[in-house]
């Protein structure tokens, strides 16, 4: 018995040593970079990393594809995180408020890095309490994708107003003999892109001048009313049955990509996917505006993918060196062209790499609109988006009227600490 115990202990020690040896401590010049992209997009990132490593002798950037925002957060908070993390501009305020991010101003000053060349709309989104907390690599806004063939077959023109959008959606929807939906007319999928964008497109705002949350603003309510009208027409259950078997950007299961969706709200990467993987005959147009308010035209949400340096990063200098390099024009162009993104530097827009980029002209024209807005820069955004999403769901499933739902949301949002 004793011998067996000894043997077990020995093997145990061996395996543990083996295990810890496998994740040996890093060299001094290593920079850990965790990004959210996977698959082909990750390859673009890795190519850039390789170029950076070859271009200088001080730092080695090691990239990891970790498409899970939560996991990255937990690691950072556990002190086991990367030196550079990728995320979205909406979260900068809350992470900064938690003390999770290292400010970049000192680095920027040392290397003469400024935001002069950057699209003005996005600069505020990466600042918190006057300090720069992250760098935006791209600009994301959303346009309406229209399946031209489906509209032609239904005899309707491309919609400009939200009333037309509803009308077009109803007319292009086709229902099968068993009551199930075969072609979805409305931008009901993916659901998450609808409300934020259409709120801004219909002239709404999620906070007021005093900084209070206002989910019950007229834009949101109007957007929800429009959405609910479509669902009322065809029933919530058939629509949910349709969308529940849809898979985002899967060429075989994404309804717009298979020609089963007439209208769609999505971003620049979608243009790339549509062109490379399908033959859908489409156009990308600005989001519609309410007929009574043409001054709201070309409204929508703008945000960006950002990179930040966690406050407990082990190699802050190396992290900054890479970020600085990455956000220079040539690298930014390589990154954004590959991903189908719009670069955040205005001078990069005229780069020949984008001459043939799909819908690039449409997007950059759109980006000049004064009605494009970012989400509010507040530390409690996650709580607010959750409340908004929850109550919007009540309105979208026709359990509450949009007004009642948003009033309830406002009441709850007022209690967020």
């Amino acid at each position, binding site marked *: *018995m004793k011998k067996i115990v000894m043997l*077990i202990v020995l093997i145990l020690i061996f*395996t543990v040593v083996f295990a810890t040896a496998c*994740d040996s401590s890093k060299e001094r010049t290593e920079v850990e970079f965790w990004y959210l992209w*996977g698959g082909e997009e990750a390859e673009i990132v890795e190519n850039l990393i390789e170029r950076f490593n070859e271009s200088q002798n001080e730092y080695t950037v090691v990239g990891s594809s970790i*498409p899970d925002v939560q996991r990255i957060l937990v690691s950072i908070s*556990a*002190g086991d*995180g990367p030196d550079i993390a990728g995320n979205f501009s909406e979260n900068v305020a809350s992470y900064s408020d938690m003390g999770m991010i290292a400010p970049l101003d000192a680095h920027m000053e040392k290397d003469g890095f400024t935001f002069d060349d950057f699209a003005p709309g996005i600069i505020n989104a990466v600042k918190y309490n006057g300090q720069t907390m992250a760098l935006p690599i791209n600009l994301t806004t959303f346009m309406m994708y229209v399946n031209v063939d489906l509209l032609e077959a239904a005899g309707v023109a491309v919609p400009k107003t939200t009333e037309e959008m509803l009308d077009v959606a109803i007319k292009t929807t086709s229902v099968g003999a068993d009551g199930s939906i075969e072609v979805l007319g409305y931008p009901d999928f993916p659901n998450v892109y609808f409300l934020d964008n259409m709120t801004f497109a219909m002239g709404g705002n999620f906070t007021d001048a005093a900084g209070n949350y206002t989910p019950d603003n007229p834009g949101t309510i109007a957007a929800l009313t429009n959405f609910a009208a479509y669902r009322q027409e065809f029933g919530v259950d058939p629509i949910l049955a349709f969308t529940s078997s849809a898979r985002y950007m*899967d060429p075989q299961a994404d309804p717009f990509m298979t020609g089963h969706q007439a209208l769609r709200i999505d971003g620049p990467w979608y243009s790339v996917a549509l062109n490379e993987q399908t033959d859908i005959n489409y156009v990308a147009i600005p989001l519609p505006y309410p007929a009574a308010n043409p001054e709201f035209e070309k409204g929508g949400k703008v945000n960006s993918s950002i990179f930040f340096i966690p406050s407990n990063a082990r190699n802050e200098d190396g992290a900054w060196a890479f970020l600085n390099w990455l956000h220079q024009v040539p690298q930014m162009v390589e990154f954004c062209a590959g991903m189908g993104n719009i670069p955040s530097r205005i001078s990069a827009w005229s780069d020949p790499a984008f001459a043939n980029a799909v819908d690039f002209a449409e997007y950059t024209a759109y980006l000049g609109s004064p009605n494009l807005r970012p989400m509010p820069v507040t530390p409690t955004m996650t709580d607010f988006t959750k409340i908004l999403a929850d109550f919007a769901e009540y309105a979208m499933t026709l359990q509450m009227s949009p007004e009642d739902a948003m009033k309830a949301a406002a009441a709850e949002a007022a209690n967020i600490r």
Partner: protein
Amino acid sequence: MKKIRISNIIPQIALLLLGLLFIAPFVFMLSTSFKLPSEIFEMPPRLIPRVFTLENYAQAFMTIPFFRYTLNTFLITFANVAGQLIIAPMIAYSLSLIDWSGKKIIFPLVLVGMMIPQQVTMIPLYMTFFRLGLTGSFWPLIIPAFLGIPSLYIFLLRQFFMGFPKSLIHAAKVDGASEIRIFYGIVLPLCKPALVAVSIFTFLYTWTDFLNPLLYLSRSEMYTLSIGLQAFVRERYVEWGPLMAASFLFTLPVIILFFAAQRQFVEGITLSGVKS
């Protein structure tokens, strides 16, 4: 119940139907794992694939670092089994066959410890390991086993030891043997079935554990199979074929373990359920 056969038919049919229903998910998992994507989307689903392919398994191996995850899971599981095998019997012995007053206090505490929901200790444990700089490593997943936690196994072994023939121990004591010698020389060798049961259940519990790896493992090189599988299903492009293949591969070791040690499984469960 020596009734005529006929009245047994209804229960037999019911059991047959239930049995088929219970097997069905497995069958579909397997059959899907060998199907081409086009066939997977076919409605109604066919039981036996028209074209039998190993492509999904290949895909699973390419997308998930399967070998690495299996190694990690195995390391942690092995360490846990070793830890419990070394520690739990000692403690169970002290709670049953050693005559001392402490066991009246400790045994109830062991029972209480078994009933504490994980979430109650989750955050402070995390903070403790965090302050010790151990988060992000395998240590938080291994250390508890060497301290007897989860204490279910202490309980099981203690129940088992209580039925041990005290006469043997008496005889040894009369001969002047120390407790340690009695424990290692007499009691343990005769308790192999119980020890096997503890090993099996520790293996099962650790191999399939999700919450603890989720909390403590952040770098993907260190993931266990459970985290790896969850990460795989969460990402954008869900391919059913590779997903089923991966699930099956993850499940296979425990199924093999079960069939190899069926009797001990059943004995172990009944030991805990019937004898408490």
